[in-house]
């Protein structure tokens, strides 16, 4: 009996409860999948990569991007500076090449920008102390991204954008979990034929079990 109850509870736990519990561990939420990785651009000395974008949510707190560090030769700093539309420096984040594996997706974290939603920002990647031969390389993309313009490489407009992902800090403890559940249910119901058939099957089996169990107890 204990085994039956345990496995039944396990099934319900896996489907309903575990996703909510795990959602509490998601501290930063991206607003898209990473764009495709195309060519790379070296960042060194006075060669900077500049990118304008519009934040889609409040609490912008991280920018993630893939960076090459061929032969792990770079051990120096790379700096991300974020400017608002008035060109005020609002945030900075520094990573060390010592912690950047070749082709790794890295995150530049900074204090959340609370009212970032629908505001335009410009980030600049720079590495003043790096020489060309040891430069880190940031991946660019040819994908057209909403709210993202073409990058500027050393003040010249490129035909590509930076392949980056903005992350936002949830406003409260339950926001992520509730969003996950609402998107999950919405996605499930979008396949109407399957959702209807599946729910009909599950509900009818549940009713059958309850009915026959109660019927047996009555008799």
């Amino acid at each position, binding site marked *: 009996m204990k*085994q*039956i109850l*345990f*496995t*039944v509870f*396990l*099934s*319900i736990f*896996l*489907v309903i409860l*575990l*996703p909510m519990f*795990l*959602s509490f*561990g*998601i501290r*930063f*939420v*991206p607003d898209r*999948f*990473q764009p495709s990785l195309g060519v790379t651009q070296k960042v060194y000395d006075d060669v900077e990569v500049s990118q304008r974008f519009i934040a889609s949510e409040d609490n912008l707190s991280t920018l993630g991007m893939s960076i090459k560090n061929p032969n792990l030769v770079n051990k120096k700093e790379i700096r991300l500076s974020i400017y608002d539309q008035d060109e005020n420096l609002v945030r900075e984040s520094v990573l060390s090449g010592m912690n950047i594996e070749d082709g790794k997706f890295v995150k530049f974290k900074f204090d959340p920008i609370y009212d970032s939603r629908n505001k335009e920002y410009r980030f600049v990647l720079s590495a003043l102390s790096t020489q060309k031969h040891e430069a880190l390389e940031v991946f660019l993309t040819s994908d057209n991204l909403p709210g993202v313009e073409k990058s500027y490489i050393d003040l010249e407009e490129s035909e590509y954008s930076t392949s980056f992902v903005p992350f936002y800090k949830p406003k409260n403890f339950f926001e*992520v979990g509730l969003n*996950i559940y609402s*998107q*999950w249910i919405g*996605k*499930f119901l*979008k*396949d109407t034929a*399957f*959702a209807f058939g*599946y729910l009909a*099957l*599950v509900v009818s*089996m*549940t009713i*059958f*079990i309850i009915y*026959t*169990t109660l019927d*047996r107890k009555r008799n």
Partner: protein
Amino acid sequence: MDILSQPVLRNLLILAILIRLLVMPFYYHPDIKTYHFQASFLQDGVIDIYSFLEANKERLPLKEEFVYFPLTYFFLGGYQILISPLLGGDFKDWLFDASAQAISDFKIYRYLFILKFPYLLIDVAMAFLLTGFFIDWQQKKRVFIFWLFNPFTFIAIYLYSNVDIIPVFLSTVALIFAVKNKLFISSLFIGIAAAFKAFPFLFFPFLLLYGKRYSQVITMLSLAIGSFGAILIPFWSESFRQAALVSGLTTRIVSFGIGFGFGEMLILPIFFISILFFLSLVDREKVTENMEKILFSLLLIIFSFIHFHIQWLLWMMPLAALIIVSSRQLNLLLYVLIVLAMAIPFLYNDKAMTFGLLEPYSHLYTLLPLPFAAIQRFYDPYVVQSVLHSIFAGGSLVLIYKMFRVR
């Protein structure tokens, strides 16, 4: 007395199916997409999948080799052809989409449910099959309920989309025929099971011990190898050898040993399996009473000495079910070992083993740090894995000893 004539057991069967249906659409392991992508070429008339994948690697979106044996390809490919009207026209596009966005397809729940459905049928059939090992009605009931409600197979099959349930089922069929002294049919089933995946051949030397005469043994050998060979030989090529023969199990089982010079090595898993075999050989009269314990011990030895996938643990579950029902004194140790064995792969540095399973809910779960990364902050996670694996090996040794002491 028939299982289905009992209202309580009938209701438990429906409940067991229900809890499986609840989980089936919502947990995703990438293997199910990979091998169904590969199996989809059967519809296009591809018979030799190994050569096809090798020749077309550059243009295909998924580059993995087909690591199973041919019957897995034909089974999965044939099933896809059969249920293609239910999968819909977009299914093939989904299979061919190698991007991270593929998981966002709203039809993924339909695909997962339908693709796992054969496993549900075989899983339920296994519950009935296991009752055939017992004469006592209470034992039949216990093994039926144990199999339907044991969390280990539930997780292995429906979370990890474990196609191994097919050769596991066929191996169990082979075993029941051997126990009932239908040795030639047993050998045929072993050959067929091995034509899905190689591991059933691990059991075969022990099943040969049922043969009382040399002519029987030779016939059993011929049937098993013959049926296996008849299926495999048409596919023999370098591509097949690389993809399916040089697999995880076959290389890992012979890679751990103690070198004693001149290029030779005492291969420890083979050493201990040989001990088990020769002990069985000299005590053949007891083989028929204890075959499930012998085969379970065989798998414990193998898993003690190799880095294993969680899916492989399914191989031992029917045997565990038989032992749990017939030798209840060992239950606690057996449960502890199985939990330990399932915990070890959770510590691997592989997202698909843990939070990646929940991607059908949201890809955000892949942002969670793995247990591997969490442990890495404090200690070397490989050492932790090794400690747990060593404890598992020690516990396995004790269980093997106790299994043959308990009457």
